[in-house]
Structure formats: structure tokens, C-alpha cells
């Protein structure tokens, strides 16, 4: 018997390390199982429950949920008033996404190409802080701004521009006693809240456009606007699409903003909330919640084809 030279005694931890070394898959499996179980059971399980619920129906007389498979609830989505809600939501999401793209571009472009040193950090924090700071507080701030007696009305009166606000409020479809009760107010607040989600991926995409490419196109005689249209814009597009996924999806499902600001016309999110709450019609609420999922699946498929996921 010779003593095993310099190696210290092996404990359970060392033996386990040996097992992990020989079987790397085992370690992987041990690591991934808890999060996968959580997401699989809690999240996917819930999504399955949502789907299941949407195939149930409600007894119109007793208001009790009938737990039998039926497509009746989905058919209800095609009633005129429900179709209206879906169309209104999609139109709003599209308008918000377009407005966000236009507003975000100069910020993202400046931050990506011109901001240096301290300014770069300032721009980064300047976008990150509003992105993360309290959602509800931001919505509340706009209630203060858009209220009839609020700061915007006061400023408009002081500068004799109240006619602009009145002009907006007299456009058919945007009527209201003040901006805070007009669909235009809802639109403004949506744009404000989701704007940072558009800026960040856009900026990331613009930062990846190599300077040499812009120099080359300038050397080849392109004017500034030609460079912008034919080089920068196409290369930034995946970033725009990546950002639009967020702005579009978040607008589709939001139900707080239309509840607090606007003419209380219904959007998909608000309908889901009201149906499951006061109305107690969980099956129809579930069916309504499936609509944004379907719209997003279509949207993501189109975005994937445009190469948006390389920019995420």
C-alpha cells in the first residue's frame, strides 16, 4: 500500500464534480429543470388554461360557465360590437407604432452616431429611466397634463393657441370635453409610455451601421438624403421592426391607459378586464385574450421574415 501522493481526500462534492465532468448533460439538466418546470407549469399551464377556458361557454340565463367544448364563444367575437373593439385596438396599435417610430428616430440616431462620452451616458440613462420608472405614475402624470384645467390648457391659453386643442377635439372620432377624455389623449399617452421601447432597439441597429459604408456611399457621390434613404434606413429597419413588436404588442393588451385617459371606448385589454370582472363572463374574456396572441403570432412571423430578430 502506498499513500496516494499529494491529492487530498475526495469528498462527495469532488465525486459529484467528476460525475458532472463525465456527464456534462447531467449538469445542464439539473440547471435547466427548475426554471423550465416553473415556466412550463405556471406559464404554459396557465396559457393552456386560457385556451381551455375560451372553448367553454356561458349560460345566458343563469350566467354559469358550462364546461363543455364549444366554438360558440369564439363565434361571439365576430359580433359587430366585438369586431369593432378588435379593429379599434389594431388601428390604435398601428398608429401608436408609427408615431413611436417617427419620434424615436432622431433620438436613436443622435444617440447612436453623434453622442460621445458623457452625452452618450446621458442619452442612455435618459431613455432607460423613463422606460423603467413606474408605469402608473407616468400615466397619472398625463392625467394631470391633459386635464381641462391642467398645464396644457393653461399654456395654450397663455399663448393663445387654445384653438389647436379645440381643433383636435372637433375632429370626428376624437371628440371630448378635454384632451384627457378624447381618444387623441389616449393615443398621446400610449406613444409616451411605449416610446423608450422603440428607441433602444433602433439605436442598437443604428450603432451597427459601419461608418465606412456611409463614407463609401458619400465617395460614390450620394447626397445626404440619398445616403439616408438608401443606406441608413434599410439597415435600421430591423431595429425599427424589433421596436415595433414591443409598441404594437403592448398597445394591443393595455387596459389601464384607456381606462384612465380617453372616452372610455373599449379596447381588447379593457374588454378582457371587464368581462372577467364585473360581467363574470370568463370564457369570452379568455377568447378575447387569445386575439392579441394570434395577432402577435402573425406579426412575429412577418417580422422574422424581415430579419428583425437579429437586432434583438
Amino acid at each position, binding site marked *: 500500500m502506498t499513500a496516494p501522493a499529494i491529492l487530498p481526500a475526495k469528498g462527495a462534492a469532488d465525486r459529484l464534480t467528476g460525475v458532472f465532468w463525465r456527464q456534462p448533460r447531467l449538469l445542464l439538466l439539473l440547471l435547466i429543470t427548475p426554471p423550465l418546470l416553473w415556466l412550463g407549469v405556471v406559464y404554459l399551464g396557465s396559457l393552456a388554461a386560457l385556451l381551455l377556458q375560451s372553448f367553454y361557454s356561458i349560460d345566458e340565463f343563469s350566467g354559469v360557465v358550462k364546461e363543455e367544448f364549444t366554438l360558440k364563444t369564439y363565434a361571439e367575437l365576430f359580433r359587430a360590437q366585438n369586431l369593432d373593439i378588435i379593429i379599434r385596438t389594431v388601428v390604435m396599435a398601428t398608429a401608436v407604432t408609427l408615431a413611436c417610430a417617427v419620434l424615436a428616430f432622431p433620438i436613436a440616431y443622435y444617440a447612436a452616431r453623434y453622442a460621445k462620452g458623457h452625452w452618450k451616458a446621458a442619452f442612455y440613462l435618459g431613455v432607460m429611466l423613463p422606460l423603467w420608472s413606474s408605469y402608473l405614475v407616468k400615466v*397619472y402624470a398625463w392625467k394631470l397634463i391633459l386635464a381641462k384645467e391642467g398645464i396644457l390648457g393653461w399654456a395654450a391659453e397663455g399663448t393663445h393657441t387654445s384653438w389647436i386643442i379645440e381643433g383636435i377635439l372637433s375632429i370626428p372620432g376624437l371628440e371630448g370635453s378635454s384632451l384627457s377624455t378624447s381618444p387623441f389623449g389616449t393615443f398621446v399617452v400610449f406613444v409616451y409610455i411605449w416610446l423608450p421601447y422603440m428607441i*433602444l432597439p433602433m439605436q442598437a441597429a443604428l450603432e451597427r451601421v459601419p461608418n465606412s459604408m456611409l463614407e463609401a456611399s458619400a465617395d460614390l457621390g450620394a447626397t445626404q438624403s440619398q445616403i439616408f434613404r438608401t443606406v441608413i434606413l434599410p439597415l435600421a429597419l430591423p431595429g425599427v421592426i424589433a421596436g415595433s413588436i414591443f409598441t404594437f404588442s403592448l398597445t394591443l393588451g393595455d387596459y389601464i391607459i384607456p381606462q384612465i385617459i380617453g372616452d372610455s371606448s373599449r379596447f381588447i385589454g379593457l374588454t378582457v378586464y371587464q368581462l372577467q370582472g364585473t360581467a363574470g363572463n370568463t370564457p369570452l374574456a379568455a377568447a378575447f385574450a387569445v386575439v392579441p396572441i394570434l395577432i402577435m403570432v402573425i406579426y412575429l412571423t412577418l417580422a422574422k421574415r424581415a430579419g428583425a430578430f437579429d437586432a434583438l
Partner: protein
Amino acid sequence: MRSDASWGLKAAAIGGLLFLHLPILLIFLYAFTTEERSYAFPPPGLTTEWFAVAWNREDIWPPLWLSLQVAAIATVLAMILGTLAAAAMARASFFGRDQISLLILLPIALPGVITGMSLRSAFGIMDIPFSTWTIVLGHATFCIVIVYNNAIARMRRLSGGILEASADLGANSFQTFRYVLLPNLGSALLAGGMLAFALSFDEVIVTTFTAGQQSTLPIWMLNELVRPRQRPVTNVVAIVVFAATFVPILIAYYLTRGGSETAGMGK
């Protein structure tokens, strides 16, 4: 390219940033107004009495306490699950990897109303009564991705060499984790935890579906917004909520500054 931006671009960029920030300042101003029935601007007078009023309002404390509790538990759960997921996904490539990363991202990519409605359907079908834990269940689910994003960015930057060096020097997996991986990962995890806390503390969309009769602070605020009474008190609470999200975000930023990854890129 010119090295200077045109005035138009500069003005649009800075104007955009101001547009993002100025509205929040109003919350602070209105917490001091003497007018409690409307949002009249400019405020007719300024007072600090609302802070005392808010302090003595007994309906504010239980929601605040509940929010802190939920955010703390959800953050701890998300940190454990998110770190495990990041450790598994950082190096290995295996079948179904893309699907798993999509699954982790999904709870924040899909609108909150879907997560909320799904959880509610599940609780309904399985007859689970609403409690603090049903709120935590929802919050932890969408916080995982926040921790995961921060952790995986740091792990990718970390050279695999130091783990091998540690093994060569005789450390077992647990020692390597404790003495090599964790110190390197620490600030990224802390940043992820901070952001998860901020997200959970402020969450209202999923929470309304999973809270039942209980109120978190954001739900209390939402009720006040729909049916206002003593409006400036709502502003005082808004300042508290704002601070509770603002401070962790700033800390997270400074913890991860300078790296290729900076906290918060993916909310």
C-alpha cells in the same frame, strides 16, 4: 460623415428626451398643491401638509407592506430561477435551446393582460383561492427574464478559461461556483435583482387579475385614479412608488456600467 449633427436633429433628439422626462416632474409639483379637487395649473398655493395626511391615512400602509413583500419574494425566486436558466443557456447548445429562450422571454413579450387572464383562468379551473402567493406566482414569472438577461450577458463576457483554470487548480464545481463564478457574476445578479424588484413593485396589469380582494400599492393608486379623493395624497404615494423604482434602476445602471452589457436593455 460630418462629425456634427445638424441643429434640427439635435433639437429633435433633445426635445424627445425632454418629452420623456418633463411629465414626471409634474407629479412632484402637484403633491404640494393646496387644491384637492381638481388638477388646476398653476397650483393656487403650496403646502407640505399632504405628506402628513398620507402618513396618517391607514388605507395606504397595508398595500405598501404587501407590495414590498410580494416584490421581495418574487425577486428572490426570479434570481434563483433566472440564474439557473442563464447558467444552463450560456455555454451549452442543445436541442430546443431556441424554444426555451423564447419561453423565458414570452411573459414580457406578450401583453400583461394575457399573462394575467391566463393565470386567472388557471386559478379558476383548479379552484386556487387568491392570496399573496397567487400574486407572487405571476410576478416571479415575468421577473425571471430580467435576471436571466443580466446574468447571461455577464456569463457570455466571462472567459470560459477561468472556470477551467479553477478546475485545473483542484477546485470542485461547488468551489468554482462559490469562489470564481459568483464573485464575477455578483454585480450583474444584483442589477438584475434590482430591476426585478422595481418591475414587481410597480406592476399593476397582471396583479389586478391575481390579487383577488387584496390591494398592492399600484392597485391602490389605480383605484384612486378612477375614483379620486384627496388627489394630492395620490401624488405623495406616486412619489413613493416612483422613488421605489427609480433608485433600484440607478443602482443597477451603476453596477453594470462600462461593460458590453448594461442593465435594462430588455424590459
